[in-house]
């Protein structure tokens, strides 16, 4: 009986210890280091080539592509844009670029297009397959002329979450970011079509990013802006994304 009490106490102490360790700064540093190791291994095991997410035949497409997170944008501006078929939607390209731009949907459709059938993996564990069409981000960045100090691309979005206690609700915008390696990757596209049709609202109409070598939360929806930056520290919570800032999700979501 004593032995069992000891085991229960030891187990509880172990769990409490783990939770405490999980909140320390040195544990966060270790995890950051481990993420770097994973990312380094992912690139190294590719043997020097540009690693590509698998692409599938159209027959692999999921009959229904689930929408997760925000299923729409709860604002009058978005509802008005949606009613107009996104005719006046603009994608701004700003930051460390020679030619800042504001691309219309027609501009985006006029660029060379890439179509890819890929599997979308949510951090929660589920997967869905869809066919995405849009210009490569690299083509847009090349047209804008990325400056030498650029290290990251920040994706600005129209959608947001209301956070905080009921007497102090505040709006927190969704955003995401990636490094230049993922930004210039051939499969990184600004998608305006899913399965040959304009993007459904739940999947991010009219524009969403596809970063095929990372999990779903790195594919921001309702895209309004592309910002080229040297550092992520000054942007919003400083961790490079909405879920990274709000809930401590990993910035490198290739794991």
């Amino acid at each position, binding site marked *: 009986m004593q032995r069992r009490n000891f085991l229960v106490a030891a187990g509880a102490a172990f769990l409490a210890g*783990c939770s405490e360790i999980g909140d320390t700064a040195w544990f966060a540093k270790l995890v950051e280091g481990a993420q770097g190791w994973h990312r380094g291994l992912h690139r190294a095991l590719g043997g020097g080539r540009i690693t590509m997410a698998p692409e599938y035949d159209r027959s692999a497409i999921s009959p229904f592509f689930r929408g997760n997170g925000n299923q729409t944008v709860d604002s009058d501006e978005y509802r008005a844009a949606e009613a107009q078929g996104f005719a006046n939607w603009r994608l701004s390209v700003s930051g460390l670029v020679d030619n800042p731009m504001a691309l219309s949907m027609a501009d985006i459709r006029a660029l060379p297009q890439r179509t890819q059938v890929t599997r979308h993996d949510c951090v929660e564990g589920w997967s869905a397959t869809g066919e995405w069409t849009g210009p490569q981000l690299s083509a847009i960045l090349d047209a804008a002329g990325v400056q030498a100090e650029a290290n990251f691309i920040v994706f600005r979005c129209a959608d947001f979450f209301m956070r905080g206690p009921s007497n102090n609700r505040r709006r927190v915008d969704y955003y995401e970011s990636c490094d230049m390696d993922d930004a210039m990757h051939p499969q990184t596209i600004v998608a305006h079509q899913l399965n040959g049709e304009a993007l459904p609202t739940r999947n991010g109409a009219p524009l969403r990013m596809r970063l095929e070598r990372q999990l779903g939360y790195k594919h921001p929806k309702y895209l309004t802006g592309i910002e080229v930056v040297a550092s992520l520290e000054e942007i919003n919570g400083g961790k490079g994304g909405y879920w990274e800032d709000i809930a401590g999700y990993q910035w490198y979501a290739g*794991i």
Partner: protein
Amino acid sequence: MSAKPRKRHALSTRIWHWINAISLIVLFMSGLNISNAHRRLYWGNDGFAAADAWLEVPRFPGWMTIPDYYSLSAARDWHVLFSLVFGFGLLAFMIAAVVNGHMLRDVFARAREWRPGNIWIDIREHVKFNFEHGEGKYNILQKIAYASVILILLPLMIFTGMVMSPGMEAAWPWMTDLFGGRQSARSLHFIAAWLLFGFFVLHIVLVLVSGPIKQIRSMITGHEFEGTSDAEA
């Protein structure tokens, strides 16, 4: 006490045993937390609807998970960190075990040990709680158990985990096909985790009934004292 200490476990085996034990506990418990984020399992490449699932697993309570409350991001932190400790630990142990002969000498079974008669005797001895039998360090049932874990289940955990990582998959896409798709790999990851849990329970029970102090001491110091039992130790 004049008993002469005898070498039981190599230093590399002992270090790996404890690092691996900690890694597996952390990975299993953080894995149960991750499982709570989406409790359905599928076969094939994709799946998200209840109709596609072959199993919906229960929600695992806080006392079974790391951290002890639901947090997918924090559980992933533990999983991301300890997957490296576990993977490189296993690799180092395997290299050491091949080099020092442990793998071939103690883990691999000889042809004669596979005779049904020998296996039957071994089962009977186990039922009688007599564990000091068999010609080598380990008897045939131990060899089957250890070889299944070291050569099949542990590598299976690593490879199915790699398939689930989209960055890794882009480097080795053939591995996804090998397991029949990402969701199949996820299902196998879950099944193998519980088989390892089964081994863990059996392992602990057998250590407890075969002299826990002697067994744990030999896995720490590497020595075994001839003829001593827990009563003396």
